[in-house]
């Protein structure tokens, strides 16, 4: 089954959601995204990393280097308070969009 591309603008929301639960490194994040989407999403690291860097630059994420589960040094990202607010905001917006789309589809 062909994988789906992640819809425009939703990658950040998913990253923030996953990292809200626990800090994670880039590879872990990509694996988690794939498994949570039941392998429907193809996560391209070429767009994952730029998003991570941008969120870090904007102060939504904070990163630190520490050993991973298999003792390899990796860069772990976690949410900052500002990131949490951003997630809240994104989440509300997404809920509205989803509700609106569902309403249109049912009403048609």
């Amino acid at each position, binding site marked *: 089954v062909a994988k789906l591309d992640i819809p425009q603008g939703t990658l950040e929301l998913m990253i923030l959601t996953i990292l809200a639960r626990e800090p994670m*490194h*880039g*590879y*872990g994040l*990509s694996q988690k995204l794939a498994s949570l989407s039941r392998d429907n999403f193809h996560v*391209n*690291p*070429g*767009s994952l*990393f*730029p*998003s991570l*860097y*941008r969120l870090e*630059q*904007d*102060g939504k994420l904070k990163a630190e*280097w520490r050993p*991973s589960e*298999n003792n*390899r*040094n*990796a*860069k772990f990202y976690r949410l900052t308070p500002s990131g949490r607010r951003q997630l809240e905001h994104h989440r509300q917006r997404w809920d509205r969009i989803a509700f609106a789309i569902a309403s249109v589809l049912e009403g048609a």
Partner: protein
Amino acid sequence: MTLLHRLGSVLGWLFHRKRAEQGLDDELQAFIDMSAAEKVRDGLPPAHARRLAILELGGVEQAKERVRTYRHGGRLDELGRDVRYAFRLFVRNPAFTVIIVLTLALGIGANTAIFSIIDSLLLRALPVKEPGRLAIVTSTGQSSWTYPIWEEIQEQADIFDGAFAWSTYNSRFNLTPGGEAQFVNGMWASASMFSTLGVAPVLGRTFTPADDLRGGGPNGPAAVISYGFWQRHFGGAPDVIGRTLSLERVPFTIIGVTPADFFGLDVGRAFDVAIPFGVEPLVRGLAESRLDGRTSWWIWVMVRLKPGQTVEHGTTVFRGLQAQIREATLPAGQTATELEDYLKEPFTLAQAATGRSSLRSQYQRPLTVMMVVVALVLLIACANIANLLLARATARGHEWSVRLALGASRGRLARQLLTESLLSAVMGAAAGLLVADWGSHLLLRQLSSESVSLELVFDWRVLAFTAAITGVTALVFGVAPALRATRGAPIDALKDHGRGNAGTGRLSVGNSLVVTQVVLSLVLVVAAGLFLRTFSSLASVSLGFESDRVLLIEINAQRTQIPLEARVATFEQVRQRVLAVPGVVSAGVSVIAPVSGAVWSRRVEVSGSTIVRSERSTGPEGFGRTDARIPEDEPLAVFNAIGPGWLSTYGTALLAGRDIVERDGRTAPRVALVNQAFARKFLSGASPIGQTVRTLRLNAPAARNIVGLVADAVYRDVRDPVLPTVYVPLAQYDGDATPVAPPEVTLSVRTTSPSPATLTRSVSAAIAGINPNLALTFRPLADQVNDTLIQEHLLAMLSASFGVLALLMAAVGLYGVTSYAVSLRRTEIGIRMALGATRGAVLRLVLGRVSTLVAIGIAVGLAVSVWASRFVTTLLHGIEPSDPVTLASSAAALALVGVAAGWLPAYRASRLEPTKVLSDI
């Protein structure tokens, strides 16, 4: 995100760029490691797993590149790298860089320089309060007035927001009491001038009506000096107010200093000292004062319109007072027709926000022509840059493919090219700035040997405009082809390299650029040819006198105590004394110096003449400087009053009769000499000797007997046809301003020295021995003659240099496009040669294409030149605008340059080794 955050990020990038790069590397490496480890766990061999992991990442370099562009400061980083890379490229290919930058510099610089001059001379508003409300009072074709008329206008000044008068006529004031004069630029001003203009002094005060009283104010004559003169002459001394300044041996008290940007009202002539009209009788002497002269037209009048008042409305209001003003100032000694004309001539106001300038009418057309020429140069420069960049874009096609393959995005490449183009434009503009600054000042110095003082304000708008045009050219032709080259997949471009089957679209763009270049270059070369031929024809005009080895000495007797009646005798004494100076061959005095621009013209009645007398003249009549044409069909002749020895000093031949001798004194029978042109005009070429000539004026003096015929000589200007000239003895001078003797004469001295100026000191000493108060000005006659040709010389020089430049650029363009065409057709040429084409045939093949381009260019260029040359007709002399010789030789020059430029690539093509070319396929 807060601003602070962003700033921190940029700063962080600046300081920790290395560390950030390292961190990114490590992180991506970790990703690959972990991904590979998992794949190994799933049972893949380690090497394969790793390769798969990298592929998933989408290439390490591409991923990095994408992260970088997201990072703040990353843009700056890229810009820095682009600029550095562009610089490296420039350094690696200096010839290319130099050509581009020079082309840009000349295009930008020349345009800015010429426009700066045009702007200062023609366009810029006076630095006064609300210049838009200033209007100058004019009449049919002229704008000078008599002082009595100004006095009448002054009475009515309240119909406007003020009025004022000024004059620069005869206002070079001598600062020294005697001997060789040291002149300052003076200006006569009415009391209301500064206040009406709204020019406030930086020091002291300006004139009040009391200063302008006849004979000077209650505290004696007052002067306002300019900021420049204050700095130059007084070293900017703060206590300059109240000091005394000697002008024409009259002591003036300095009462004020004007602001630095106020140069007066005459663009191109900055004033040093302004003095009120009222003191004129003190300076010129009561006998020669013009204040009450109702026929002395020497002042200009401006009014300040009321707010919201238009020039038309102002004119209507002003004309209501016309009859009153004219009636009150009727000149004496005029015929009824002349008085009728005087009363009828209507006053008209003209917009005067830019001041007035005698330079304007003289230089407007040549400057406009130069502006067109440099604009063409700019166009050619753009075409040239476009051509060069097109050629280079082709050469770099491979580089783009490689960079694309290595992970550069298309936008990234576009930015790189943009940076390169902008960098060239910036360097070109910087160099252009230098060219413009240097060029405009050089040009100004060349324009006139008289001190033209123009405040050249650098015109940033033009600089920006020309830089923008060239920048956009560089952009369009530098970026577009490269982007087109990279449109396909990188792998295609890589494969393509060296095969030579690229589309021909780019070639046709190049071809049309080259044809355009040839057309424009031909136009410039034709212009250069026309101006060069004009100059050489003027320079070889027969003057009718020998201008070498003659020194002109202007002698002004106005400020001496010598009585009017004794002046001519003094001049003769001076001449005798100068004749005794070693190195002097001969000397003669005259009222008019040839080619000085001065004219003394009168309507005359000649006995036995067929030309009917006329009541009025459409040509100039009087004494002064004018460019007006002397009409052929009116009985106008020009005059000169000469002393003994004058004709022989000039080497002008006496053809019949006798020369003027000392015997021809004031009381002796009145005589005159005339030239051949006079005999032709008035007597159909018959001998004038024995005929009489009389000036046509009311109360005109008695007729003169014509006693000699002299050869034709240039009187005012080498461009004039020889004017019918009457020479009268100086002792029998009867000019009407000062009927007995002129205030100023020119002593012409023929010397044995090829540089007559070396005699200045000894001649000066000899004259001081007669009277130390005579004011003297020295000038070699040859300089005076050459000066009249400055404009033509300048046009010829400039257009010739630009013409050569255009030819060079056309050659570069042709060379570029031909080389490019040859590189595209390498394979084809190789096959042709393999099939038996001779080297000669290949040469003909390539040259044939070049010739076609050049031929098209020349054909179009000739048509454009013939059309455009009509606009320069008035600047040409002795040559038709569509002069076949010029057109043909210009076309030949271009054809030659074209073939020469095409020869090298054609020759190279003919030397191709077919085996080598074919093995490349």
